[in-house]
């Protein structure tokens, strides 16, 4: 197979761009909006403070940099505290690892959408049967990834240049953002060859993303080699506004080349529609628990739920391992202790503050798992399998209720799993358990937030199936308010609307129980209304 292996790539490329033009435009605009808003709001904050203190903006920046450098929670969340005394460096820090993770997510979903999902639906077969080479699909979706990330990188550079940052540094930073996207696109290309199912491939890519995020978080807090294990860590090590490093680019480009080469080699080793992992035969008869609404829902969801639980333990464990370094910050520095005491805080407060942020972050991440679980009925319906089951003697309430019940049970399971993981590694590193009860309670107090988002999802699904993906928009809103609410100086009324972050102050703080009650109320209403509405609507696969 020579050049013909890529025959038809141009047409496929145009097809993907046509199918995806709105989706990709929205992703790009959303990401660039978050990136563009950072300089504007940060500058306003710094200028206001400078005016109030009668100093210069640079001095304010330097003071804040000193505080951030000792704040393990924000380092774990956002990235290495490099060049924080420059505006560029501070913007990059505020944009942070989380935005980079979203860039990665965009790429993972893009690749899955145009490779595995296409094959599963059988459309790929139609395309391959036409005069199209075996590598054309890869080349086409790869080119789309190149274009998308290129535009994102250029847009990011433009934002920084418009703010008056040096052109070369701005271009370097934009390039690092684009590189982040390409790295995860390339990684996903491999998983979609290995797994037969889009869901499994996407899950694997997301697991890699989660691990990358956590590894770099620990690496950044402890300032050690762990970041070398994380593509996100490489990208952030570029340090565009401080002391720029070249090795991350070399390493990343090499990784992209190798992964793409592996993907190309794998494509021709398997059949269209098949994966590299063979299917084992199943039992000729069903377990007696399967023909039961809850049994069926459990069977369909269990692997997703178990993987999320494992992921939650791992995430908690990674963060738990850095808690004692926070204590070390304080113990090592007499000055730091004085600053804190001046603010009326103890070393414990710093520790609690860290756990509070981490648990809220984990709550945010696992909300995605709960949403995935509650959207399972949707994919059952779209595929036509719900029709087959609901034509049996099983009520709609029992069917939807079983799936909803699992997604509800998932919320405390994920949070407890994370809290247990966090407590165990903390104990291992520190040589003893500290206040496990408080950590577990703090994890549980966040569960109603997950339930409330789930309630909105159930309501949307039960009402009109088309609306159900809107729950991801709710999730995006919650994430933006949690991650950027303070930076954007959103009014308290808006901050309080978000179930995650602002309304929980455990461990250590005072918990307002009203919010817990309200969240439980929203959740209950959502489930009840969603299930009642579902009883009334058509079941269709169209």
């Amino acid at each position, binding site marked *: 197979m020579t050049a013909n292996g890529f025959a038809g790539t141009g047409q496929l490329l145009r097809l993907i761009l046509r199918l995806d033009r709105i989706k990709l435009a929205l992703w790009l605009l959303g990401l660039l909006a978050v990136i563009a808003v950072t300089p504007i709001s940060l500058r306003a904050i710094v200028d206001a403070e400078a005016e109030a203190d009668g100093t210069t903006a640079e001095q304010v920046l330097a003071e804040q940099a000193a505080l951030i450098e000792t704040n393990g929670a924000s380092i774990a969340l956002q990235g290495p505290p490099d060049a924080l005394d420059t505006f560029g460096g501070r913007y990059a820090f505020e944009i942070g690892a989380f935005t980079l993770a979203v860039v990665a997510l965009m790429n993972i979903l893009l690749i899955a959408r145009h490779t595995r999902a296409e094959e599963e639906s059988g459309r790929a077969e139609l395309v391959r049967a036409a005069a199209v080479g075996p590598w054309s699909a890869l080349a086409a979706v790869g080119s789309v990834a190149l274009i998308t990330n290129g535009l994102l990188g250029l847009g990011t550079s433009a934002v920084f240049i418009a703010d008056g940052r040096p052109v070369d540094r701005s271009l370097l930073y934009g390039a690092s953002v684009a590189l982040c996207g390409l790295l995860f696109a390339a990684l996903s290309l491999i998983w979609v060859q290995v797994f037969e199912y889009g869901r499994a491939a996407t899950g694997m890519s997301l697991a890699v993303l989660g691990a990358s995020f956590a590894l770099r978080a620990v690496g950044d807090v402890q300032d050690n080699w762990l970041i070398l294990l994380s593509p996100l860590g490489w990208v952030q090590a570029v340090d565009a506004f401080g002391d720029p490093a070249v090795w991350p680019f070399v390493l990343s480009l090499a990784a992209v080349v190798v992964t793409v080469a592996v993907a190309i080699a794998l494509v021709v080793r398997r059949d269209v529609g098949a994966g590299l992992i063979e299917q084992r035969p199943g039992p000729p008869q069903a377990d007696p628990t399967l*023909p039961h609404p809850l049994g069926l829902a459990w069977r369909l969801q269990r692997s997703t739920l178990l993987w999320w639980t494992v992921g939650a333990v791992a995430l908690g464990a990674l963060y738990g391992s850095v808690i004692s370094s926070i204590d070390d910050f304080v113990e090592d520095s007499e000055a730091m202790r004085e600053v804190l005491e001046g603010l009326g805080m103890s070393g414990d407060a710093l520790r609690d503050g860290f756990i509070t942020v981490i648990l809220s972050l984990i709550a945010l991440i696992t909300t995605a798992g709960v949403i995935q679980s509650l959207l399972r009925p949707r994919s059952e319906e779209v595929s*036509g399998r719900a029709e*087959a089951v609901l*034509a049996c003697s099983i009520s709609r309430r029992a069917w939807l209720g079983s799936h909803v019940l699992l997604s509800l049970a998932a919320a405390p399971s994920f949070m407890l799993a994370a809290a247990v993981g966090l407590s165990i590694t903390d104990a291992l590193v520190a040589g003893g358990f500290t206040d496990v009860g408080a950590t577990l309670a703090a994890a549980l107090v966040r569960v109603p937030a997950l339930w409330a988002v789930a309630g909105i999802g159930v309501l949307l699904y039960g009402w009109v199936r088309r609306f159900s993906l809107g729950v991801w928009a709710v999730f995006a809103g919650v994430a933006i308010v949690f991650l950027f609410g303070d930076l954007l100086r959103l009014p308290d009324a808006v901050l309080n609307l978000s179930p995650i972050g602002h309304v929980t102050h455990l461990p250590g703080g005072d918990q307002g129980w009203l919010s817990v009650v309200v969240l439980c109320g929203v959740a209950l209403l959502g489930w009840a209304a969603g299930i009642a509405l579902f009883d009334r609507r058509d*079941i269709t696969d169209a």
Partner: protein
Amino acid sequence: MTAAIHVEDLVKTFGPVRALDGLDLRVEPGQVMGFLGPNGSGKSTTIRVLMGLLRRDAGQATVLGQDPWHDAVELHRRIAYVPGDVNLWPGLSGGEIIDLLGRLGPGLDQGRRAEMIERFDLDPTKKGRTYSKGNRQKVALIAALSGHAELFVFDEPTSGLDPLMETVFQEAVGEMLSEGKTVLLSSHILAEVESLCDQVTIIREGRTVEAGTLAELRHLTRTSVDVTTTRPLAAMGAVDGVSDFLAHDEHRATFAVANADLPVVMSRLAGLGIEAIESQPPTLEELFMRHYAVDGSDRSAAPPDTAAAGSAGDRP
């Protein structure tokens, strides 16, 4: 006796689309009803209303004496349904899916289950994702045919089955009938309808256009006749019920006769002295073409040497 399925003036809209527009359907207990109509005419929509999956906008529907929407859960213990597009759970084996659908539905007879797996030649240990289209169909058919249902609802059940398996399916349905079960069968395979169904209902654009036994329906169409007489027969062209008259010479002509008018036409021909006569009853295809054709006009697909696909105005 109450009907197994009774549908009157059924209306179902999807936004601006009027998928069902006053549809009527009646199936008596113990009947096999063929349910026919062109693509998009509303067969699957009707069946989904009958299975309580879609909510009707207007009209009446009763299944086994109960309301398909309100009494769905109870009813589904008595009905076996095979949807048109069978989608299986990728991670469940065929055997698991048969048990799942069977036990959640009208129950499973273990002996019959084993027999059907054998007859349909299915490997029940394969995972759902690895079955071919025909094998996916078999899984759903086995689940339906192994139970204790009173009513079977099949939406294009044999699409994707090979001819051998089609025969197995027809035999199995035959057995259900001899046990007094009722069957509603939507299909595009006319041979299957002809061999299984005693009654057919033909719909178009969401309305019933024809219903009755196959014999009755044949009666509504025309027979083509090629006749040679001893006396000149030119006058036959003017006889009521004769159309598409084509005289080859003075004594020989071909024409079409509305079946209802056959007795009259035949006696006129007899008066002319028949030397040779060849008549062709309408085939099922012709019957359908006539009803499937848009606005009742000819479809070029109709064989040119028959006059079956007449215009609606010709109907007796």
